[in-house]
């Protein structure tokens, strides 16, 4: 059985893990979008 503290700690770990991969990916997508906008200029 899991306690509320365990549950909160796991949620924090999930958020950190997604941030760890999500932030670089979002940065890369933004860079690509900036380049892609040249198609419409």
């Amino acid at each position: 059985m899991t306690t509320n503290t365990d549950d909160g700690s796991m949620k924090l770990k999930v958020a950190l893990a997604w941030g760890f991969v999500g932030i670089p990916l979002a940065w890369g997508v933004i860079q690509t979008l900036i380049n892609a906008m040249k198609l419409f200029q």
Partner: protein
Amino acid sequence: MSFLSLLDREHTIAKPGFSRWMVPPAALCIHLCIGQAYALSVFNLPMTKLIGITQSAPEDWRLTDLGWIFTLAMFFLGTSAALFGRWVEEGGPRRAMFTAACLWGGGFMIAAFGASIHNLWLIYFGYGVLGGCGLGIGYISPVSTLIKWFPDRPGMATGMAIMGFGGGAFIASPLSVWLMGLFSTPTHIGVAETFVVMGIIYFCFMMVGAAIVRVPAPDWRPEGYTPPVTAQKLVTKNDVYVYDALKTPQFWLIWWVLCLNVTAGIGVLGQASAMSQEMFPGRVTPVAAAGFVGLLSLFNMGGRFFWASTSDYIGRKNTYFCFFVIGFFLYALVPYTGSIGSVTLFVCCFLVIISMYGGGFATVPAYLKDMFGTRYVGAIHGWLLTAWAAAGIFGPVLVNYIRQYQIEQGVPKAQAYNTTMYIMAGLLVVGFICNFMIKAVHSRYHMREDETERSAARVGATARPAGA
């Protein structure tokens, strides 16, 4: 407890309270790194000027020599995924991810040494051979783990990971350019230093994935999820041993389905910039064409998640039917967009086509799971990746050689791709037929229940096939 034993499957079994949403980021840690392979071309021009610096010297490497680095990496991706698939499956995801991190990071280090002493063979060996093996092992390492954690949404789960492979280039491309700028001086091009830094970053990033990945306990089920009591027509509840799967017509039909879908997309992806400029001369500039390629990459990545997730609702077979039917009409429409001069329609056609190209990659692990069960899906997927390697040869050859032949026959450049588009549409008809012929796997290929239990219980042991 030794460090190596921490890599064993038995030490990665999740404890109660573990969230399955930790596993997709673990998979993304691997796929975002190995996806760098798609951005390798940013090193091509700098590596042709390592001696001449401002322009290529006679002793500098030629582009054709450098092209072999990517070809070798892709060849070893397919080979290692096929050969090490069963080892990956039986040893568990952490051992596979750790191995992939060592091969990928180590490959960069050897390539860096090769660049620093100007020895191309070291780069072939480092990036092409070792890195290629890291690519193959890393690519299949999280597949079956994700499917086991998400039995209710296997398409979405594998789609997320494989989306990372498409997204890896987005990070690697600007990062490589920035690092090379940082390390370059008027008398030196910083390729070797960039390789070292990227090797270290990728090794660390992939190790985080290896550290946080977990496999579910054998009796684990998602909360509120009840496995279907009766098997669906095309979704088996049985497992098929990896080498037995290769004996089934279903495996080879899916092989052709993937190969034809990828052939159609990969040829276009490689030629998108030139094609857009040649079909719309004067209207699509090189800068705009680069933007078009960027948009294609985004749709390639997004399509992986979108189509794989959609397949959870409409089924894998129907998803591939969508690819082949929609793809057929869009390829047939492309020459018309050129004839009426509609850049917008041309761009829209290819964005959808490329989303389905990515979707084909991302949906296929779940298709294999439906056909052959979860036990050896990663290993079977490894063998299936040979279809990717084959398509990597067919696609560009078709586009390039037919275009060249057309031009030599006096066809204007703006219309030189028309025949290729109709051939691609024809390939999709063949793909449609292959997909149509896929039926459930015959029960004689299923692993016996006692064999399945024994293979699951004997961690790291070799399961004996029922039908072998």
